[in-house]
């Protein structure tokens, strides 16, 4: 696994830095919850901030998200992904009441299915960014608010947190999200920690760039084209 991860990370030299890093020198490890990470040497003087990455794949696509100095989570899913169970039954079992309400209000079943997939990828991206595993951030303990034309928000589900034995101590709310449509076929959610330190978050752009890659052969910048449509 680590060999294939490193091939994706190593082919990406798209870091706006004039640092002289040889990606082949990267070593990988897993954190105590099993999340793969780059083993960052503290005396790496040529680069000030550590690199973080996360990987997601669907049946026909692999995505690797890379960030400097912030943990990152990424999830991709086919937009038209059909579920065996009904959307609302899945939501009732795994999502929070407010998310169920949001989905239940959507009368068109295609639109409802798409919103479910968006919520699913956003929640997955958050859990993966946190890096504590699925059980470290159960889906029903945090809500994602998806209002059109405004920032995606995350909040702890107060009632569930108060009722549960372990509370929601590990769930933090200072995370930022990007949701995009790839090639009109996939939803991609990216989640990074919010380091804005109290500044008005909307004014700091995420600076998201997306490359389509054939590893070691060709990289094409696709963000800013029709291939990548930012939803928020």
């Amino acid at each position, binding site marked *: *696994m680590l060999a*294939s991860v490193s091939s994706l990370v190593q*082919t990406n030299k798209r870091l706006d830095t004039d640092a002289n890093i040889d990606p082949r020198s990267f070593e990988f490890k897993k954190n105590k919850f099993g999340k793969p990470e780059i083993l960052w040497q503290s005396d790496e003087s040529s680069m000030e901030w550590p690199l973080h990455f996360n990987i997601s794949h669907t049946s026909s696509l692999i995505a*690797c*998200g*890379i960030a400097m100095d912030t943990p990152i989570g990424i999830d991709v899913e086919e937009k038209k992904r059909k579920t065996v169970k009904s959307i609302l039954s899945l939501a009732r079992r795994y999502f929070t009441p407010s998310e169920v309400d949001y989905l239940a209000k959507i009368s068109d079943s295609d639109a409802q299915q798409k919103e479910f997939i968006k919520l699913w990828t956003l929640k997955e991206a958050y859990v993966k960014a946190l890096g504590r595993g699925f*059980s470290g951030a159960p889906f029903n303990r945090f809500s994602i608010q998806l209002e059109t034309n405004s920032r995606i928000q995350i909040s702890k589900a107060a009632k569930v947190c108060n009722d549960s034995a372990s509370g929601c101590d590990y769930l933090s709310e200072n995370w930022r999200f990007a949701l995009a449509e790839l090639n009109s076929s996939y939803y*991609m959610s990216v989640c*990074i920690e919010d380091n804005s330190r109290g500044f008005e978050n909307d004014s700091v752009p995420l600076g998201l760039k997306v490359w389509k890659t054939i*590893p070691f052969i060709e990289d094409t910048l696709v963000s800013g084209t029709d291939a990548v449509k930012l939803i928020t």
Partner: protein
Amino acid sequence: MATQLSVVVSAKLVCTAAAAAVAASAPSWNKGSRISGRKLVSMRTTAMARSGLVSLRPPRFRVFCVAKPETVGKVMQIVQKQLALGDDVKLAPESKFTELGADSLDTVEIVMALEEEFKITVEEDNAQSITTIQEAADLIDKLVVGDSPPPA
């Protein structure tokens, strides 16, 4: 200063080997599970015990607990339906969900189907640890008998 964030996307056809490798693999603990689903209890007796005298050595027990074959079969049925696997796909108890093509959404649907079928609730930490058909079946049987004492 904008946050620096890059996403690299690759078509899976080129990276099929990578994709298989990227799929999470949990260590399998079920080496003993190849034994078919019978509960085996063996107790060593000494010649003295057989002749009616009490053995002073405590008896040694070895107990194998694995899921019932019917549980394994039911799990296979549910997985086959969820992942829309054709009859030509050979399922084995040690088959890993990820190797059968399941992603996280498939896995939660499988867990939900198992909950409905067996009338159990699977907590997230348990759900996270089941990666093969056998592990799912073992967990189910554990949860199903959870409230009742083991047979004498």
